[in-house]
């Protein structure tokens, strides 16, 4: 429990909580980016450099930009007359608080004695080696999934032809 962990945790929680509670959607995505950067810093602190930089590349670089484009294409920005929360918000927040209470209780009553192993540096070389040997089949399946998702997203977002339901 170091000071840097507390600062990064506060940054992450503040960013994500603001992203889920602000009214302007562009502000939501900007604060969400802050939360993702905080998470990437936490990964770096845990010694997973590659995952941290992947997080920045994929989430801050791609997912946030994708969300901004989706918000602009659906014209969700502007003065809102309708409330930001759905009609379902009371049971929704009760369920979320209950989930957090159960998880926190389980964590606090669970693992009490964990030794702290020395920092194990992982080089990109080792990760590439593992991806090419031990995890070769998952890597191929992931390539197939990404191709299918790419084609599927393009087909979904294509304008429909007339006379076609």
């Amino acid at each position, binding site marked *: 429990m170091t000071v840097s962990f507390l600062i990064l945790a506060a940054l992450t929680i503040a960013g994500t909580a603001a992203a889920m509670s602000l009214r302007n959607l562009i502000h939501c995505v900007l604060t969400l980016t802050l939360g993702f950067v905080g998470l990437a810093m936490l990964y770096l602190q845990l010694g997973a450099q590659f995952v941290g930089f992947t997080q920045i590349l994929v989430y801050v670089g791609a997912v946030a930009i994708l969300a901004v484009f989706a*918000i602009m294409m659906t014209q969700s920005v502007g003065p809102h007359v309708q409330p*930001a929360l759905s009609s379902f918000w009371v*049971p929704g927040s009760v369920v979320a608080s209950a989930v957090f209470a159960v*998880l926190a209780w389980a964590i606090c009553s669970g693992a*009490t004695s964990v030794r702290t192993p020395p920092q194990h540096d992982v080089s990109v070389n080792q990760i590439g080696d*593992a991806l090419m040997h031990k*995890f070769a089949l998952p890597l191929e399946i992931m390539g197939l999934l990404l191709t299918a998702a790419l084609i599927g997203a393009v087909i*979904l977002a294509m304008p429909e032809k007339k006379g076609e339901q």
Partner: protein
Amino acid sequence: MNPLTGYLLLSALLFSIGLAGALTRRNAILVLIGIELMLNAANLNFIAFWRYGPNPAALTGVMFTIFSISVAAAEAAVGLGIILAVYRHAKTTDLDQMNSMKG
């Protein structure tokens, strides 16, 4: 409190924030972002358990997180494509107004 507990509590809080967003927000794009936050909370758990686990040389947690990030990116692309397709039909991303499945 040992370091692992701190990371697990942070991850649980992140998951609950994402769940609350996914359940209570009115805009479909923010619901998708809430789901992304829950995936990120799971990734943080993987990395924390890998770091404080008994065998960090096996790289299992790192690999699982990399694959999970890839799946989440594909999910975000397809999800936003679906939202755009629905918006073209219903002219709204308000989930309270999307109450019919045909038309």
